[in-house]
């Protein structure tokens, strides 16, 4: 009985020596953080935008909307000739 108790106690004591992984497993040169959502996967705001609205999940429509917005930085086009 004492022998069994000794074995159990030894197993528990040795178990405490184990080491858990505390950091992420690094892969050299690869991003290790959380994934990010691309902007076009969001819903277009309800408010009227200068660039117009886009369809959720459609990259091309978001790019077209942001392109229209970028054109407002050109005062020769914005204000007119």
């Amino acid at each position: 009985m004492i022998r069994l108790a000794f074995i159990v106690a030894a197993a528990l004591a040795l178990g405490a020596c184990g080491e858990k992984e505390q950091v992420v497993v690094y892969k050299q040169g690869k991003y290790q953080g959380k994934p990010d959502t691309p902007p076009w996967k969001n819903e277009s705001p309800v408010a009227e935008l200068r660039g117009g609205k886009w369809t959720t999940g459609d990259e091309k429509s978001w790019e077209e909307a942001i392109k229209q917005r970028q054109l407002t930085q050109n005062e020769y086009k914005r204000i007119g000739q």
Partner: protein
Amino acid sequence: MARMKFLCDAERCIECNGCVTACKNENEVPWGVNRRRVVTLNDGVVGAEKSISVACMHCSDAPCMAVCPVDCFYRTDDGVVLHDKDLCIGCGYCFYACPFGAPQFPQAGAFGLRGKMDKCTFCAGGPEADRSETEFHKYGRNRLAEGKLPACAEMCSTKALLGGDGDMIADIYRERVLRRGRGAEVWGWSTAYGLPPKPGAQPPQPQQPAAPTGGKS
């Protein structure tokens, strides 16, 4: 696919610091951290004074990404360089590598203890749920997910600072230069978006200073 870039027109910048204020306000950047700064060259020299608005240029081959020991940087599909603050250890390597001094470190405690790195996100937030409270608290506002451009560029009163797809803002700048007939130099673009040197290519030779032309010294 859009490749987001900044372009600062030194002929137009009037050093009003509107971009700095817009960035601070939009992203609620903490005290002591400046994601964007206005740098004035040849200050006080008549005819030679130029001001430039500087922040992270979201380089094509970003040195911060290369030196980060924990690989917390990533580039989005739009070419914006972002980082995960949960992984950042605040070592400061990126600060030493960046040619623009973009990475900023808030003071996190006594004795100059550095916090996690903070930098311009091109108003694209970070790796948290888009437009969430957590994203805003950690990285600032995600204007790209709202269909808007960075606040600094949109707020610029003289439109010296342009932000957006590289091709598009280069077209705007080209038209501007053609109309005014001067100031074609785009500050920082060759550093941020230039092609890497070809293997075996000769390094550029330093230019010889011009011979004095008989002026008084």
